């Protein structure tokens, strides 16, 4: 098979997703490509690239949310609105919601182009770093 860059593959997948092509089909194609190239370990990178293309080209932002407690519907909506506003997105997809008690409180939002961290844990760490100088 002709060597294609990961970026090109990501663009292809993003385009197909936007057109509404079956996700399973696209996943199979992508996995086959990676297997052929011997780069199955890079599948996460490919996913990130696809997200990046979707956000850049189609203003479809995917977000990964981490909170100290499970999200309720209101908070989820508020987060989506926030992401749409800050990323200037036409639509937002929350790809994953992770509960991490170590955050103590607040939220960490990860999009292809940004990371928004308002967790209590990070604030405490910042405080410690500032005090230590």
């Amino acid at each position, binding site marked *: 098979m002709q060597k294609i860059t990961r970026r090109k593959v990501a663009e292809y997948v993003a385009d197909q997703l936007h057109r509404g092509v079956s996700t399973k089909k696209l996943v199979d194609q992508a996995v086959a490509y990676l297997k052929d190239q011997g780069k199955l370990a890079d599948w996460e990178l490919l996913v990130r690239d696809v997200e990046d293309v979707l956000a850049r080209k189609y203003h479809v932002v995917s977000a990964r949310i981490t*909170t*100290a407690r499970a999200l309720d519907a*209101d*908070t989820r909506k*508020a*987060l989506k609105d926030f992401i749409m*506003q800050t990323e200037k997105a036409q639509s937002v997809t929350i790809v994953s919601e992770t509960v991490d008690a170590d955050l103590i*409180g607040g939220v960490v939002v990860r999009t292809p182009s940004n990371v928004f961290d308002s967790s*209590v844990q990070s604030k405490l760490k910042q405080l*410690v770093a500032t005090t230590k100088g």
Partner: protein
Amino acid sequence: MMHTIQFFAASEAAKNDSLFGALGIDWRTLILQIIAFSILVWILGKFVYPHLIGAIDKREKAIEESVAAAHEAEAKAEQTQKEVEQLFKKAREESAAIVDTAHKEAANMVKEAEAKAKKRAEQIVADARAQLDQDILKARAQLRDEATELVALATEKIIREKIDTKKDKTLIETALKEAR
């Protein structure tokens, strides 16, 4: 010959009974004796005395020369003695000077060594002080960091207990509002 003359004089003397005879002097014998004495003196003067006197003079000269040589040798010995004493004196002075110089140099070396040791000791003390100050600063910083960590841990524990689901939701909403 002398015996013949004396015999003739004695026989002739017996015949004289004048003043000379009163004195017991026989003028013929006297004259003969005078003649004999003169001859003796002449012979001695001609043949004996010159050699004798020559020998005496020679001996005297030799003695004088010996005396002069002895004097000269004595003078030389005295001179040499003086020179030797002078040399000894000079040697003593030089050795005294060397010893004095050595003493001074030794004293200087001791002084220098003392000054060096003192300086080194002061340097060590200064370095130790500086090291101590640095260690103190380091310890203070470490203590401050550890205290900060402890405070953060304690704060974390307290906040964890204080924050419930409601407060967390409020926290998130506030953060989103502030970030807009």
